[in-house]
């Protein structure tokens, strides 16, 4: 066995042993959740508003028997990504209020102690009561726990490509592509076809089916038949005959896009950038008393000279109608230096971006999965 392969094997074995040890001795990878009761009440005008509940009713499982007339209720489940961290925070709060931090393990006794403590403000009591009630109804969230493990697994699968191409990486890559494509298609259907096209062609039907909140002022608009026909034309390329018909809407889109972008470019990039480069070579910076600040003036002027110089020499570098010799050649050489500095800055920024992505993934693995740091 090659030495490098042996070292990598040892690393993987050590990681496996560490993982097994963490799973067996800690709360690692488990997500807990507690219910929060939501009650809404229908107003006289037909709208709904949320009913404010005290902690004693808010963090308790919803029961239909508690509802009054014209009320609807349900539970939402709030996740606690690190139970140990939650208990530590609860224990610290109890200790600060002069109570035994060990009460975190007995939420009912904690509630009694909080209710019977006369030395607390109402606001502090409410916070501690909420925490005790959350703790009492806290249960393991199977779905969220599975999600954390799945997320960690796929992260490691993708990272495994750094070692070499392998079936785990291929599997994760395929899942990402498939899930993203399906998600984009579903979102596109509901946000564009349903909300923008169908709601203008059949507003009544949409109001009765998918979008009850569709404003009444939206009525049938014949103009939307044009994009509807274009959509059908685009999909026509899937038919065995007449696939050429999809070129018509494509030609329309290309023409529209080119026109829009050309005008936007001319206004925002061409004209505005020329205007932004027309700046004075000497800038006089003055203080509040009106006297010139020499160093600031020199620095501001130098900045303007660099901007103008870099723009001009960069343009000369891309001007190929004259041979790059003599003064033109010199200017072009300066221009290429400015370009190289720009590329260097871009590369530096790119590196920073990639490191940030790695740091975020490691924060997730260390925090949400391994519980070595606070969860993100």
């Amino acid at each position, binding site marked *: 066995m090659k030495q490098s392969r042996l070292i990598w094997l040892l690393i993987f074995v050590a990681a496996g042993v560490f993982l097994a040890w963490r799973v067996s001795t800690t709360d690692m990878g488990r997500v807990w959740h507690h219910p929060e009761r939501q009650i809404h009440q229908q107003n006289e005008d037909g709208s709904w508003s949320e009913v404010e509940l005290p902690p004693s009713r808010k963090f308790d499982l919803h029961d239909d028997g508690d509802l009054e007339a014209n009320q609807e209720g349900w539970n939402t489940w709030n996740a606690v990504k690190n139970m140990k961290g939650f208990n530590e925070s609860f224990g610290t709060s109890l200790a600060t209020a002069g109570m035994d931090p060990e009460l975190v393990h007995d939420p009912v006794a904690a509630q009694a102690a909080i209710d019977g403590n006369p030395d607390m403000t109402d606001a502090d009591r409410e916070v501690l009561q909420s925490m005790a009630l959350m703790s009492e109804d806290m249960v393991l969230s199977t779905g969220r726990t599975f999600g954390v493990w799945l997320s960690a697994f796929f992260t490691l699968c993708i990272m495994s490509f750094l070692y070499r191409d392998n079936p785990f990486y291929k599997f994760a890559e395929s899942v990402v592509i498939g899930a993203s494509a399906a998600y984009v298609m579903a979102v596109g259907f509901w946000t564009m076809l349903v909300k923008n096209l169908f*709601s203008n062609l059949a507003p009544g039907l949409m109001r009765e089916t998918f979008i009850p909140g569709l*404003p009444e002022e939206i009525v049938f608009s014949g103009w939307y038949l044009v994009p509807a026909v274009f959509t059908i034309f685009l999909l026509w390329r899937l038919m065995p005959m007449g696939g050429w018909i999809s070129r018509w809407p494509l030609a329309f889109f290309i023409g529209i896009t080119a026109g829009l972008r050309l005008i936007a470019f001319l206004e925002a990039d061409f004209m505005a950038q020329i205007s932004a480069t027309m700046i004075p070579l000497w800038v006089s910076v003055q203080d509040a008393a009106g006297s010139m600040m020499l160093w600031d003036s020199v620095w501001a002027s130098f900045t303007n000279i660099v901007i103008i110089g870099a723009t001009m020499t960069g343009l000369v570098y891309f001007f190929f109608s004259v041979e790059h010799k003599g003064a033109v050649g010199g200017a072009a050489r300066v221009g290429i230096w400015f370009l190289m500095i720009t590329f260097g800055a871009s590369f530096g920024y790119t590196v920073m971006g990639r*490191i*940030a992505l790695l740091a975020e993934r490691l*924060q997730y693995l260390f925090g949400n999965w391994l519980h070595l740091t606070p969860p993100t």
Partner: protein
Amino acid sequence: MYEFLKNLDRRWIFLLMLLAVSFPILGRWSFPEKISPMTHDVFTAIEELPEGSKVLLSFDYDPGSQGELQPMASAFTRHCAEKKFKMYFLCLWPLGEPMIEKSTNLLKKEYPDLKYGEDFVSFGFKAGGEGVIKVIVTNIRELIPTDQFGTGLSRIPMTKDIQNIQQMDLIINVSAGDPGTKQWVQFASTPYDLLTISGCTGVQAPLLYPYIPNQLRGLLGAIKGAAEYEQAIDERYPKIAAMPEAQEAKQRMGAQLAAHILMVILIIVGNIVYFVGRKRGDA
């Protein structure tokens, strides 16, 4: 030594990088940030607006870029909430809706007094890229008849009087590419002179600097810009400074420092190996 370095397997470098990024995260290293003029411009653009101003937050990124952009999106949201702005969330990327949900969940958790429909609203995702901006800058209801959840804009208190995004006092764009800040500058900020600020990925930042200051008031470049912005918010709002979850970007700068030191060392070592090899006639 020369032979070892010359034939070094690239996977050792990956392992070194993994360790360099891991240790600062495990040790939770973070360093104080010095606020650059660019970040200061972004901060003051928000800070100078009066309470109740209307702000459009367009989150044009997806989970692939959230390592860089989520900290600044969260910081923008907190800053707007502290200023009691009316927040209108939108995204032009299909996978951007979960990114908006992160911010609305943040508002529900950290600012429970703010109410959906009165203080913040989400338009969700709109397909069409720059076409969306081109339309909503003159008529928002043409493309966005309802909010993300299907409620008509005329039935939501904070949108019933909104006709177009020219009524916004500020546009905040968090951008990972196309459509993103460039399109907001081209189709909204420049032609309609709308006050716009941006936070973007490192790859985009050098391409967007020319728009400053006339077309773009300020720009947060990558995680460094986000960390400086967090610092500016911390100095102004001590309540946020005490929240560990509001220091995401600053915590990632520790990993950046270690990784960059490693990269500088590797570049120097690589050049030494190259020049030694050339001297020996290997190159």
